[in-house]
């Protein structure tokens, strides 16, 4: 799980990019606390053929990126 809460853009999406570049994992989980980060990570995910699930809790967002089969 990448914890990118409290970080301003573009750091959260960059952290996710680095994780994907490093090991091309089937699944990446990340916590962020702004809608901008959710949108940015969603755009990155679709460019790399990942699906994204977003769960919102208490003003924070848990994103699960899953590689498309």
């Amino acid at each position, binding site marked *: 799980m990448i914890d990118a809460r409290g970080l*301003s853009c*573009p750091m959260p999406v960059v952290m996710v990019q680095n994780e994907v570049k490093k090991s091309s994992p089937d699944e990446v989980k990340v916590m962020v606390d702004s809608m901008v980060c959710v949108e940015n990570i969603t755009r990155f995910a679709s460019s790399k053929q990942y699906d994204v699930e977003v769960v919102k809790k208490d003003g924070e967002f848990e994103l699960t990126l899953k590689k498309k089969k």
Partner: protein
Amino acid sequence: MDDKIKLTKLANCAGCGAKVGAGVLAKLLDGLKVRTDPNLLVGFDKSDDASVYKVSDDLALVQTVDFFPPIADDPYTFGAIAATNALSDVYAMGGEPKLALNIMAVPASLPKDAVHQILHGGYDKAYEAGAIITGGHSILDDEPKYGLAVTGFVHPDKVLTNSGAKDGDVLLLTKPLGIGILTTAAKADLVSEDTMAYAVRLMTTLNKSARDAMVKYRVHACTDVTGFALLGHACEMAQGSDVEIHLSVGDIDLIPEALDFARTGILPEGMYRNRSFAEAYVDAGDTELAKQDMLYDPQTSGGLLIAVHPDEADALFEELSSSVPSAQRIGTVRAYTGGARIYLR
């Protein structure tokens, strides 16, 4: 260790991206009593770039103010960009800047030399524009901010607003797009040195030559493309002129490295604000999402968007081609047909 000050680390928001969104701004101003004056030629009723007040039959005063937090790490560069951006509003009205006042906020901890360099950058640009800086005001603040209040002159009959575009006009743009995305990516040190140097050159290029060229032609409307992005400013032009605008996305100069960042989700918060303000008025057709994002990207010290009579578009385009960073013929103005205000094709 590199102990050079990195100004952008002290900023919450980069450059014109710090601007309050257009929709929010309208709500903030709502209910405030607006007084009029027969000599006030341009007020804030049409969301224009500056106010214009007629002093005599052949002289009108153009007034504007613009300031923001650091968009560059180097103090001199930041000062030069902020000044170029502030002066631009006068050019967008077809005017010439004459007097300027510094507006500054600095943290107590910022070294004197850095403050001096910010001002030096501002003075150099004001002088290049033919204006003089006659004073200013500074306060202490954790986040540095700098800009200018600028007064210029224009002939009352030659004022260019954003609301005069006419059916058939050709739209020209004078700088490429992607500055907001690049300055966001720069916060994570992702931008190549060459591209960053190019971005700084663009942001410190005065819109003076664009203005000097366009005033010789039948220009019906003009605005500078800044915080509200090409689509936000084009939308204001279309609404203010009661026309619709057709943009040819393939003819718009999008900085290639910025488009690459857009495709991987490196986008500033201001882009989303601009999108939520303008997208209800935009028919994007099948334009790629990343290219749309580039058109919603907030620009700092962007170029002029010019609506020119079709008979004079070729001549103005040719003149701009040799005098501005990137002359582009990006679309046309058409009579409003009741649907979207902007069509992307």
